[in-house]
């Protein structure tokens, strides 16, 4: 039989459709599950299962809609607007749009890299991410193919782009009306986001020599105090390594690393260090304005994503030329890609132009170091900085009238006027505390009626702590290798490793970067596996213990309990999600290709992995979280996350919501609420730690695993909330589930709750929701049961 392009269904194999795409050496179409390349409603049944248990909770930031010219419509109290959509529908539509934006960002990043890398290395360049057979877990699970070369990702991105266009169409007025279906589509966008990120990171790891599953990747320096400001300084801002790679190559070739400092802000920094370990990291987006205003950078190189919109404006004031290297951010600058390097440099040095769009990577590589040498000399001689000098500072703080307008405009509500008062009396400590809590947004500058440039004042007062801001971060290792999964998968599924906690996302923390360090330190000491990426991975490395060691120096980077891993930049988040697929595949032998629902069902019921985006701000972070949710991974965000306007919250008091099937015979088993929520916020770090521990429970835990997880849940709650959790007993199935050290007192408490205890045998006779059954095969998908009971 000759196979032609198209799709066919095999009789008797209900739900199995085999799609034949491009057949040949480039792409192996070997779907094993029913949903390769799922269309927009291809996984809707799975989404409904999620949404029926984890109900969307909407917290609108506004009660009106102004999407079309019928509006503005007042939707307060869930009223309908002129088109018939109500506030619930509109909120769900916003969730979809947010997910689409995030997914588009990562996928467009992937597209930019793919086009560039194919041009440079050819379509047949082999994928190599380290010691793995399952090299592209998300691609396999979603697409049903096993990519071997970077060219194999062409149809993957085409699929993502086509699906995203379909999803964007849905957000137009007069399209979808059901909030449930908007959410199913948002989950689809989230999944596409994971796929786009995987493509982007696999191709850059493969082509650009990034660490490949390297648990011993070297350390990079990080912090606002690491650069020598006397040298010319190049700062790259954004997420895309393509242009900075050429700058690093040029500097390497010409031996310039001793003469010029080069560092990155935001995820570009991650990938610069993955590309060349000599590069350094300043920090997250929160540091952009602070660092530019310090006047230290002599050249700013921008690419894409999380680049502040006012960078050119700010840079201009300090005569820092901006080189925009990506079409997505051009700041109205002239495109100088076809001009000679020397001409461009002349125009920038003479301030004829404040910056240039430059899309020719070779020229960027040549121009930036040269420009830095020239600008460095000029700028340092002039001592250009936006920060006030000591005299100016004294006058500025004395101007504060304590009107509190700045606090009202500050997204963190920071007590700025108190710090001003203290500084008048020579005490800078309040400002130093503010420096870490301040997200560097600059909103306060606009608000002060006395005309105090508040952020500059905070930064001036914090020079002492800024100079000491020198941390270490283990360079992004990329994927978790198959051998590591083989070693650890069992512990995870049985629960004897209490959980995987993924610290991801941005720097919009509710109470400073130190929180993230504190949470990681507490949880890693309890043997959780900590995986990090993006700005969270950077902030973890910013603080030191008494011996002067950062967490990366204290804890190794293997995927085993009590280790701290950094996968890399934002797009390497894909590997964190993909780790759960690897567990399902490598440890449990589940088929991956085109088999999303089964894999996600496995992850949700068995893999104790939780994402925490404590400072999430971007649409990208929301999309990642939503994608993780579709894969069955719960996500917790900080309090600012309520402004994402949608969460997925379980209701433990609704017993029927927690019915699962036993895959052995299809019988219904009422289980404990595990995981209890899929997307939720917490107010403070003290609240979030017990919550994280709780969200690691899974129905598949064996007794030893459950006892370990329960120990941490109880201890964290007692330590940080000063109470035994109200619901601890729900997670007890028999006496062996109880923490060993507290077994008797806890059994007494259970007896007080009406449970029957045989004290002689020290056994629980009656009380638990269900028994422990080591062979239990929890699933939410009826077709996965061997024999479905009628």
């Amino acid at each position: 039989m000759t196979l032609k392009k198209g799709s066919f269904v095999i009789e008797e194999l209900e739900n199995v459709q085999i799609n034949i795409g491009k057949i040949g050496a480039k792409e192996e179409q070997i779907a094993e599950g029913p949903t390769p390349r799922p269309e927009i409603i291809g996984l809707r049944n799975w989404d409904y299962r999620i949404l029926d248990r984890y109900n969307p909770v909407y917290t609108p930031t506004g009660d009106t809609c102004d999407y079309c010219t019928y509006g503005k419509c007042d939707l307060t109290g869930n009223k309908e607007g002129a088109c018939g959509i109500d506030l619930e529908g509109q909120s769900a539509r916003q969730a979809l749009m947010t997910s689409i934006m995030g997914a588009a960002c990562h996928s467009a990043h992937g597209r930019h890299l793919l086009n560039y890398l194919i041009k440079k290395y050819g379509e047949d360049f082999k994928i190599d991410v380290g010691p793995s057979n399952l090299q592209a877990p998300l691609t396999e699970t979603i697409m049903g193919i096993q990519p071997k070369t970077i060219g194999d990702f062409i149809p993957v991105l085409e699929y993502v782009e086509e699906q995203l266009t379909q999803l964007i169409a849905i957000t137009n007025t007069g399209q979808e009306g059901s909030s449930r279906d908007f959410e199913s589509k948002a989950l689809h966008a989230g999944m596409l986001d994971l796929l786009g990120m995987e493509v982007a990171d696999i191709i850059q790891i493969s082509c650009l020599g990034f660490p490949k599953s390297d648990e011993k990747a070297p350390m990079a320096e990080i912090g606002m105090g690491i650069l020598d400001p006397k040298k010319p300084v190049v700062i790259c801002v954004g997420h895309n390594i393509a242009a900075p790679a050429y700058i690093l190559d040029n500097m390497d070739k010409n031996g310039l690393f001793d003469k010029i400092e080069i560092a990155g802000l935001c995820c570009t920094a991650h990938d610069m260090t993955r590309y060349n370990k000599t590069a350094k990291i300043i920090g997250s987006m929160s540091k952009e304005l602070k660092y530019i205003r310090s006047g230290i950078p002599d050249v700013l190189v921008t690419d894409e994503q999380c680049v502040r919109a006012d960078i050119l404006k700010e840079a201009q004031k300090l005569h820092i030329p901006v080189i925009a290297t990506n079409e997505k951010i051009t700041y109205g600058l002239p495109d100088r890609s076809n001009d000679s390097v020397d001409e461009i440099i002349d125009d920038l040095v003479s301030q004829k132009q404040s910056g240039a769009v430059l899309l020719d990577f070779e020229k960027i590589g040549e121009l930036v170091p040269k420009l830095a040498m020239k600008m460095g000399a000029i700028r340092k001689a002039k001592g250009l900085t936006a920060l006030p000098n000591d005299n100016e500072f004294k006058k500025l703080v004395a101007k504060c009238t304590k009107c509190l307008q700045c606090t009202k405009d500050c997204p963190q509500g920071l007590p700025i006027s108190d710090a001003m008062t203290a500084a008048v009396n020579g005490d800078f400590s309040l400002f130093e505390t503010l420096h870490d809590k301040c997200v560097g947004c600059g909103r306060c500058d606009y608000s002060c009626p006395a005309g105090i440039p508040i952020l500059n004042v905070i930064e001036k007062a914090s020079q002492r702590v800024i100079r000491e801001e020198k941390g270490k971060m283990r360079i992004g290792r990329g994927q978790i290798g198959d051998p590591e999964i083989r070693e650890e998968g069992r512990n995870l599924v049985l629960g004897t490793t209490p959980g995987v906690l993924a610290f991801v996302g941005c720097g919009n923390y509710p109470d400073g970067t130190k929180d993230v360090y504190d949470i990681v330190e507490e949880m890693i000491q309890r043997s959780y596996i900590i995986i990090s990426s993006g700005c969270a991975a950077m902030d973890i490395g910013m603080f030191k213990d008494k011996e002067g060691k950062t967490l990366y120096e204290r804890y190794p980077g293997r995927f085993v309990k009590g280790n701290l891993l950094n996968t890399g930049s934002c797009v390497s988040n894909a590997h964190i999600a993909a780790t759960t697929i690897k567990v399902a595949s490598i440890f449990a032998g589940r088929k991956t290709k085109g088999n999303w629902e089964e894999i996600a069902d496995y992850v949700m019921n068995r893999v104790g992995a939780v994402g925490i985006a404590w400072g999430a701000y971007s649409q990208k972070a929301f999309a990642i979280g939503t994608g993780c949710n579709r894969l069955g991974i719960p996500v917790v965000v900080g309090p600012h996350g309520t402004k994402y306007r949608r969460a997925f919250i379980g209701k433990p008091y609704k017993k029927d919501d927690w019915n699962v099937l036993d895959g052995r015979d299809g019988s219904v088993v009422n289980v404990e609420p595990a995981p209890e929520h899929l997307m939720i916020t917490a107010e403070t770090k003290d609240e979030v730690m017990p919550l994280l521990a709780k969200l690691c429970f899974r129905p598949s835990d064996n007794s030893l695993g459950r006892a370990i997880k329960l120990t941490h849940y109880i201890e964290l709650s007692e330590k940080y909330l000063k109470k035994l959790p109200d619901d601890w007993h729900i997670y007890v199935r028999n006496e062996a589930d109880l923490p060993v050290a507290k077994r008797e007192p806890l059994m007494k408490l259970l007896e007080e709750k009406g449970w029957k205890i045989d004290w002689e045998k020290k056994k629980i006779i009656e009380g638990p929701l269900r028994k422990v059954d080591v062979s239990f095969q929890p699933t939410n998908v009826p077709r996965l049961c061997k024999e479905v009971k009628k």
Partner: protein
Amino acid sequence: MTPKAQVMGQNEEKVIDTTRQAVPFNTGNIPGPKMARAVMPAVPGKMLAKAKRPLLIVGSEIDDPDVLARVVMLGKTGIQIASVGDSYKYLGDKGLDAHYMNMHALMSYICDPQWPGLDGKGGYDLVVFFGITYYYASQAISALKNFSKIKVISIDKYYHPNADMSFGNLKKDVFIEALDEVIEQLPK
């Protein structure tokens, strides 16, 4: 010394006006045409006194001793407390009917008529709150504003547009005084 005297530093009465500065505490937080009515403390006080099953929600900002003292006084009148964020650590040993809850989950449950409440005795007819991170509370109660019928009153130091009623933005001494006036309305 009575709490009021502690604040004033003397035994004289000061008339406070909690309806001033009734603009969203965070300048940009303007949700829409329906924003909270600014009220004097007697209004929430009387409503709390009249409610059959009121719920007081407090959060991480009750760490201030003056504020904490008022939470305890309110709790001692028998009002059930949902202690959100990490606030339980301040309340656990005070002998109150206080229960830890996650704020976000609590909002979801209050919107659900089938929720049995914190103690299994059913839902609530009034929500009053204070001492919660401003933007967090503001966002969370937007769920109640738009997707539930329950009355929500802020007695926090911030003007909360998403509540049905709220104080304006208050300086600390006025805030404490306002809480005392709310407490005065309640049966001892």
